[in-house]
C-alpha cells in the first residue's frame, strides 16, 4: 500500500507537459528582455539620429518645419514635411503606437529605427517618446535599417545602394564579408533575383554609380542593364541618358531599351553574372573585368608546351635557346607571346568587321 501510494506521488510530482510549457513561457519572459530590449519613455532631445542610416530625410532634425526658401530641394522637403505632418497629427491624437528602437551611445540614445516617428513627435510638440531600448548596438543594424526602409516607395535607388554598401561594410567589419548575391538575399531577406540585380549594380563601373548618384539613372532595371553592358555600350548608353536628362522624358526610352532585352538574354546575363560573382570574390569593391587572366602554372614545361602550340615553329625557334628553367624568363616569353597573339587576332577581327 505504501509503495503504491509513493509511486502515485512520484507520478503526480513529475512535471507534465503543461508544467514544462509554463516553465518555457516564464523562461521566455526573461529572454524577451534580453532579445528585444526593454520599453522606456525617453526624452526626444537625447535621441541622436544615425548618421549612416540609409534613409535620408533631408529635413532639419532640430526643427523639421524649417525649410530654407532657397533650398534647391525645397519641393521634395515640403512633400516630406507634409507626410510628416500627417503622422504628427495622429501622434497628437493617439501617441506613438509602435515604439522606436534605440541603443545607448554615451549619454544619448542612437536611433536604430523610427526616424519619421522621432521627427513627427517633435513636430507634434512632444518631449518624450516610447522606445525599445536595445541592450547594445544590435548586430547587423544596417541590415535591419535597410529591411525597414527598402519597402518605402520614397526611397531612391541611390539611397538603397547607400544602405546596401553600409550593410556590406558592416558585415565585412564583423568578419563575415558577403561573398555572393545569394548571401545578400539571405541577409536582407530579398528574393534571389532582386539580390542579383542589386549585386550587379553594386559592382558596376564607377560611371554607372556616378550616374545613379546624379539622378540620371533612377530605376533598378536601367541600372541593372548598364551593369551588364560592355564598356563601349555602357558609355554610349550613359551619354544618351545624360542627353535625355536635359531633354525631359527620354529617360523612358532608355528604360524601354532595357526592357527590350528578351527574357532569355536576361536569364543569360543573370547566369553569367552569377558565375562572375562566384569567381571574383576577394573584394566587394569590384569592377567589370577588362581582361582575362589565362591561368597560372608552377611548371615551366607547361608554359613551354603552350607556347610551342601557339606559335608557328619558325617563331618558336627564336625562343629555343632561352633559359626555360627560369620562371622570370619564361613569364616574359609567355607575356610576349600572348601580347603578339592578341594584336594579331584583334587586327584580324577589325579587318573582318570593316569588310
Amino acid at each position, binding site marked *: 500500500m505504501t509503495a503504491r501510494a509513493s509511486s502515485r506521488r512520484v507520478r503526480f510530482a513529475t*512535471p507534465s507537459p503543461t508544467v514544462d510549457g509554463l516553465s518555457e513561457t516564464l523562461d521566455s519572459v526573461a529572454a524577451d528582455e534580453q532579445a528585444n530590449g526593454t520599453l522606456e519613455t525617453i526624452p526626444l532631445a537625447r535621441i541622436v539620429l544615425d548618421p549612416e542610416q540609409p534613409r535620408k530625410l533631408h529635413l532639419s532634425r532640430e526643427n523639421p518645419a524649417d525649410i530654407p526658401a532657397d533650398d534647391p530641394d525645397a519641393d521634395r522637403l515640403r512633400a516630406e514635411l507634409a507626410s510628416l505632418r500627417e503622422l504628427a497629427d495622429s501622434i497628437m491624437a493617439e501617441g506613438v503606437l509602435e515604439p522606436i528602437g534605440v541603443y545607448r551611445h554615451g549619454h544619448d540614445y542612437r536611433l536604430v529605427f523610427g526616424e519619421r516617428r522621432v521627427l513627427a513627435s517633435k513636430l507634434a510638440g512632444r518631449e518624450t517618446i516610447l522606445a525599445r531600448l536595445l541592450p547594445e548596438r544590435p548586430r547587423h543594424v544596417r541590415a535591419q535599417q535597410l529591411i525597414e526602409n527598402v519597402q518605402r516607395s520614397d526611397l531612391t535607388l541611390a539611397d538603397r545602394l547607400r544602405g546596401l554598401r553600409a550593410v556590406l561594410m558592416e558585415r565585412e567589419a564583423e568578419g563575415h564579408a558577403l561573398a555572393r548575391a545569394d548571401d545578400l538575399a539571405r541577409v536582407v531577406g530579398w528574393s534571389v533575383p532582386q539580390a542579383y540585380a542589386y549585386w550587379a549594380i553594386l559592382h558596376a563601373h564607377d560611371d554607372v554609380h556616378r550616374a545613379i548618384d546624379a539622378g540620371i539613372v533612377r530605376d533598378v532595371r536601367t541600372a541593372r542593364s548598364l551593369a551588364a553592358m560592355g564598356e563601349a555600350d555602357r558609355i554610349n548608353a550613359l551619354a544618351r541618358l545624360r542627353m535625355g536628362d536635359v531633354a525631359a522624358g527620354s529617360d523612358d526610352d532608355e528604360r524601354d531599351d532595357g526592357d527590350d532585352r528578351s527574357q532569355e538574354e536576361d536569364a543569360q546575363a543573370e547566369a553569367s553574372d552569377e558565375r562572375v560573382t562566384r569567381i571574383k570574390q576577394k573584394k566587394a569593391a569590384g569592377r567589370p573585368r577588362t581582361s582575362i587572366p589565362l591561368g597560372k602554372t608552377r611548371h615551366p614545361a607547361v608554359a613551354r608546351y603552350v607556347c610551342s602550340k601557339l606559335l608557328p615553329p619558325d617563331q618558336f625557334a627564336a625562343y629555343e635557346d632561352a633559359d626555360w628553367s627560369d620562371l622570370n624568363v619564361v613569364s616574359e616569353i609567355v607575356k610576349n607571346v600572348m601580347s603578339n597573339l592578341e594584336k594579331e587576332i584583334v587586327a584580324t577581327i577589325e579587318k573582318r568587321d570593316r569588310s
Partner: protein
Amino acid sequence: MQTLVVCQNKGGDGKTMLSRLIGEFAGRNGLSTLLIDMDPQCNLSQRFIRMDIDQADPDGVMPPVHPEFDPEDAWDGRCSIADIYGTRAAEYGIAPYETWAENVQILPGHGSAMRAVELVRSSDVRELVVERLRAFLSDPAFRSFGYDLVVIDTPPSKGPLVQSAIRAADHMVIPCQMEQGSVEGLQGMLQQWRRENQNRPLEQRLNLLGILPNKFRAVLIQQGTLEALLSRVAIRNYVLPMRIALRSVFAEVDHPNAKPRSVFDLPASNPARQEAESVCRHVLREMRLIARADHATADEEAAA
C-alpha cells in the same frame, strides 16, 4: 492608487473569493478600496450588495437603484462597470455603491450589459474595450474618488473584458487549484501577462505577484502538482509562499444568512482566517500598500 487584477482562465479556482478577501482585508486596514466586478455572473457584486432581479437576463441580476438616485434625474439610477464601455458613464457619471464592509465600495457587474460589451466589432475591440478601463481608472474625475486600492475580479476567460482588466492593472494574482485543468489555465494567463509587458515601458510593468495555490487539499494529486510546479526554477519564483486550503467556511460566508459575514470576524485562532490574512497581508505588502516591517499584530502573534 494601485490596481490589482485577479484572473484565471479556468473557472471555479477562487477568483471571486480572493478578490473578496483582499478587498475586505484592505478595508479593515484602513485602505479606501474599490471592487470592480467584470464577471457577467456578478458573484462578487452579490457578496457585497443586494442586487436586483432582472427577469430578462440569464444571469438574473442587475445593480440595485443607487441611494443617490433622484427621480428628477435623466439617470435611471443604476450603475455598473459596463457603463464605462458605452455612453452611459459619459452621460450619467459613475456612482460606486457602498457595501457592508468597512472602507469597501463596489462597481457591480450587470450580466446582460457586460456580455453586450464583448459583442463589439473585433476591429473596435482594442479601442472600445481593451483600452477603456485603463483610460477610465486614470481619468482625473475617477482619481478624485481617492481610492488607495482597486481590485478587479474577472470572468473565467481570455476575452476582451479580461484583456481590459489586465491592461488597467499594476499587479496581477492568479488563484489556481493544484489540478491539471487549473494548471492548464495558467498558460493562457501567463501568456497574456507576457504579451502585456512586451507593450509596456519598464516603469509601468504589470507586476505578477504570483500564483496562489487555492482550495488546497492534502491529497497526492494536489501535493504532486504543487511539487511539479516548484521543481521548475522559472515557475517557482511565481508561486506564492502560502496557500489557502479547501474549507467549507469560505463557502459559508457567501450565504446571505452567514454569521459572521466575514472570514476576518472568525476567532483569531481559526485556520481559515489565518490563511486568508497571511495571503492578503502578503499581497498588500508586495503592492507596498501596507508596510513591510509592520510589527506583528496580536492576531499574528497568536497565529505564530
